[in-house]
């Protein structure tokens, strides 16, 4: 029982940055913008967060710096993609490569240096509770941060007016424009907000989950997984967070598997989430293929199952909106 609780605690910890990144991208994509720069953004903000906390001795200042860097990269994407009408996919991809190299270049002097990390928080009184105490009694602050972010994102998206505007500009920018919403500005805001969350994910890596900075840091590739989880999560914050924890569970079990199969070299387990990513995308998207729909039509009992998997992307995802072209 204790091992089980500790495994859950480890999954929560490993999943925290993935959750933050996934929520950030979900916010951005809900507004209709694809931010493909996640992988590089996480790395650059991880570097910035570590460098800042090592220089000023304050890890929370580092987290702030990470969020700022994430927002800045998203801002570049937002300005070029939304206002200058260039391809979001292309710009996002360039930004990924650029920020990755920038992280290695600027972080050169901080490589393998000591620096503070966020440490652990202990919630008084909870530590003695039987099962929950082991999971939540003493945890990294990023775990609490990620759990709070899930609740906040869900509440914001589905229970506030701001969230309604967010969904409106992603689903139907023309209608939103007709209602007097400044579509491009709203999109830019959510691009920035999402980027800030992604930046926090970077900080969570370098200050809590994999403390330190070096080449490689260990969070390379996480951004791509997060991008896939957004699709897996069907652009819903709670489902996306569950997806993130699912992948974290895979990573954690990879460590156990390594003990069971010592003959398989360790680096192989690091790429294990990627075939899983492809398979989950396959499972999620197959329901919309013509030949799969034919099979479902012939066997009605499959319908309920396929419905539970079916997801819809925000209708205007990745499309430009130019108010001058009118309604």
């Amino acid at each position, binding site marked *: 029982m204790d091992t089980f609780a500790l495994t859950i605690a480890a999954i929560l910890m490993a999943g925290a940055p993935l959750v933050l990144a996934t929520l950030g991208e979900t916010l951005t994509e809900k507004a209709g913008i694809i931010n*493909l720069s996640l992988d590089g953004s996480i790395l650059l903000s991880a570097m910035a967060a570590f460098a800042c906390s090592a220089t000023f001795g304050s890890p929370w200042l580092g987290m702030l710096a990470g969020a700022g860097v994430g927002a800045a990269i998203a801002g*570049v994407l937002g300005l*070029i993609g939304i*206002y*200058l*009408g*260039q391809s979001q*996919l*292309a*710009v996002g*991809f*360039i*930004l990924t*490569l*650029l920020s*990755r*190299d*920038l992280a*290695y*270049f*600027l*972080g*050169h*002097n901080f490589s393998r240096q000591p620096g503070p990390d966020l440490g652990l928080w202990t919630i008084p009184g909870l530590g003695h509770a039987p099962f929950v105490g082991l999971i939540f009694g003493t945890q990294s602050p990023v775990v609490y941060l990620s759990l709070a972010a899930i609740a906040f994102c869900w509440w914001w998206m589905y229970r506030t007016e701001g969230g309604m505007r967010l969904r409106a500009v992603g689903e139907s920018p023309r209608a939103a424009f007709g209602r007097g919403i400044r579509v491009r500005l709203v999109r830019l805001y959510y691009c920035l907000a999402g980027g800030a969350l992604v930046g926090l994910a970077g900080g969570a890596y370098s200050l809590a989950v994999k403390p330190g900075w070096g080449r490689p840091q260990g969070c390379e*590739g996480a951004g*791509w997984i997060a*991008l*896939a989880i957004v*699709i897996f999560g069907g652009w819903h914050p709670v489902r996306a967070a569950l997806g993130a924890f699912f992948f974290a569970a895979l990573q954690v079990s990879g460590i156990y598997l390594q003990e069971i199969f010592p*003959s*398989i*070299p360790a*680096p*192989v387990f*690091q*790429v*294990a989430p*990627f*075939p899983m*990513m*492809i398979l989950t*995308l*396959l499972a999620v*998207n*197959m329901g*919309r*293929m013509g*030949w799969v729909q034919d099979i479902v039509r012939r066997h009605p009992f499959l319908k309920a199952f396929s419905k539970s998997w079916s997801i819809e992307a925000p209708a205007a995802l990745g499309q430009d909106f130019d108010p*001058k072209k009118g309604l």
Partner: protein
Amino acid sequence: MNRDSLLAQTGWLALALLLALALTVIVALPAGAPPLETIYVLFKGGVSSWSKIGRVLAGWVPLTLCSVGLLIPFTARLWNIGVEGQVIMGAIFATAALRPFENGGGTGVIILALAASMAGGALWALLAGLLRVFGRVHEIFSGLGLNFVALGVTLWLIFGPWKRPGVASMSGTKPLDLSLWLPRLGNLSVSWVGLGLACAAIVLVYFLLYRTKWGLKMRAVGENPKAATLFALGPRRRLLQAFMLCGGLAGLAGATQVLGVYHRLLPNISSGYGYTALLVGMMASFRLPLVPFICLFFAILNVGSIQLPLQLGLDSSLSGVIQGIMVLSLFIVQGLRLWLKQRKEND
């Protein structure tokens, strides 16, 4: 936009270059890089001697093979981000074909390895294509996932079944027999076979895309997939063909890395050329005539950047930073141009 005069075009290009230069200086200064000296070291490190030019050309070959290959799927508006994995798979297949000939072999064996590498790259690309056509997995994710899977396969081979007798390490498999190395061009570290293959690929892709019916249909698929379906141009089959051709060329790039540069299989066998090739493609706006020159420029940057840690104590990833900034600047300037044009039309 095509109606702009040559002078205006050059002006915009110059603006993009200036912007790139300014941005590079801004990001490089905090790392303590003196701007002029850094640029001087970069270019001197790339072209100051014949042996360096040889290394530049050795980098130009795989980069050109990948970039030119990428034009084919891009013509059909497909993002083959899996080039990196296709290069790696090509290298793995080439190594697999060479393994039975540990004690040496002739030209026939080398040709076999080149063919195997093309098959490997094409197969890996086909997988991404099939996932897209029959599974609706966007090619960006399938390609990327497969890149990492290919890397995993390389690592497993190097540390497992193909490990060097005695020690398994990141330095790769046992070096190839000397008779299996691609013949060099004089004393340079580049092979004339590789150069020939790259030039042939340029001609081949040009011919395929602009001089055959196949290329015309491919462009039609890219311009309007719905119409292409109505006119029975077979977009799905064409899509798979485009991926496989690109993958084959990328695989060939992997073979030149194994046979001509490293003479063994390494974890870093692709040297990131797959990703750089995407930058090249975007920088050239996927116009074939520009591709070889941009590849040459990027290759010079890559080779020159090796001098940065030695002479200035900077990280060599600056070359990647400059490449990224250049493409980004081009996009910014293109966007500004569009914006100005629209403003003029509205007035």
